[in-house]
């Protein structure tokens, strides 16, 4: 993916950005927070879509 042209283009920018990489512990903590409740919500959302599909046959519009 890194063609010469692409790399050259990036090098031209040559910008300096103050940055910090999150540590493994920080990322683990962030992911734990992020995933809490996610599975339940997604399962419920998928069930709602499945239920909607089922009920969509009940009414004919004209």
């Amino acid at each position, binding site marked *: *993916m*890194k063609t010469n042209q692409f790399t050259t283009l*990036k*090098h031209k*920018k*040559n*910008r*300096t*950005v*103050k*940055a*910090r*990489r*999150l*540590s*493994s*512990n*920080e*990322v683990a*903590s*962030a*992911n734990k*927070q*992020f*995933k809490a*409740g*996610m*599975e339940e*919500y*997604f*399962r419920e*959302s998928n069930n*709602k*879509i499945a*239920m*909607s*599909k089922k*009920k*969509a*046959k*009940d*009414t*004919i*519009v*004209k």
Partner: protein
Amino acid sequence: MESNIVKAKVIGHQEILDFLGLLFYEFYDKRLKTDSRSFRIIKKLIDELDEGFYFLVEYPYVEKYYRDIYYNYLSTKHNPYSRNSIRVNIFSKEIDYDDFENCSISSDCFLGYFTIRPTSPYIIGHSYISPKAFSKNKTNNIATYIKRSIIEGVRLVSPAFPYSNQDGEFMTCAETSLSLILNYFGAKYSNYNSLLPSTILTLLLDHSDQRQTPSSGLHFEQISHILNKVGFGPVLYMKEVFGKEFNSLISIYIDSKIPIIAGISSKDENFNHSVVIIGQQNIQEIDYTNLNKLITQGKQNKYVFLDELRRKFIANDDNLPPYSIIDLDKPTSNYPPNKTYTDTEIFTFVVPLYKKIYRDADKAKYTIKKLLENKKVGYKFKSDIIIRVLLTSSSSFKNYIRNLKDFNKNIELFILQTHMPKFIWLAEIYDARTFPQNLEAKAIIVSDSTDPIEDLDIEDVLFFACYPDKTIVMDSEYDINFDMFENEENNDAELNKDDDSSNSGQLFATNTIKNEMELEKIIVLDDNFNNYTYYSNYK
């Protein structure tokens, strides 16, 4: 009987109505009686147009959708029907037939057209009228495409969303709504095709147990089936299942400029209808008086989602003139007074998503909330916030970022280099105290639309998040150039500060690349985010 072009220069609404009445009688051998439903339908349309327009009327006009209905159904009936339509072109200034002969007419004054067909009482055929022709739409956001028309040999263009009456026999509201949606997407995007009415019925053959004509309507599962067949990834939502989130989901999709087909039913079950919702009221016109009541206390912020504020929407309902303004909780408030229409609701809708959008609005909104409230990758704002969630194409978004004035160049570079799918979920965060007067976003969060899995890490969902004084990006071999940090020598101790000092992050510099395989992908940039204003697909 079938004369060549009829040209007319008509001033005022009453004259065009009289003139169309004459043409209707001459060409279709039927009178447009003033007490007839046909007359009321066409009068209502003309009454809603701004005053002072001029009309060029053409007959015979070959309107392909009507012609398809004629050959596949009307011509098989004993009673004769004309196969031709009348086309009424609308101009905002005085025109003369010589303007066409001299090619001196331009699109500036062209406001589209409507067609009339002999299918009483529902006589308005496929039409493309500019929203600008209606004063009610001066500020509304409406999904349109540029409709190209050739009138008397002159090519004219005008923005429009297709509109048509149902004919009540070959096409009920369900097939008509499908036809309008497919017409819009087919004309606007190369991925899709417009379908003629007979093709829609053919696609339904394996999904119907009875004869298809005369049509007895469709249920939403069939509507969704057609959309699926022609290349969309449709998702169906029922109000009784999604509850209070239902209107929010409509709002998110319409804010994303994705027209939807919505089903309306009356409580007495005498009325089941479908409409196409194609636009929304401008944010300046939303009622913000109840904002404080809607604000939720989250883990870090007090927030409200913009889609939860009550606003009005624009719909093409074949029972009403184009671009009707509707309330989601009272979708038939524009209907004539009738007991059936007083208690109606939108009970379902189907959204024709691009087939590779796997994370729908419900899940995307929840994901955004989780990201924003996260103590590591989220942000604690000083004041209450309004969160706006919408779907957009990554290319349009990057183009928008590129054209922002005085936007932080470092952040711009990261955004432009970030590899993203065709569609992304964008969240904009505004200060609730100053919105909508101040449309400068305090923050944005951009996340994936192509992964529906719940057990993803943040780095697999989040592309980047820009907050007032920091930006979260994902380190990637392709997207973030390590060289951009190559000159980083100033090991500012402030950067290593963290609420848990034992977990302090590493300063990201070239010398850390050697351990690349062991490094986490989430990087916090010390850059200010500002000068980003309200992004809209409608612009």
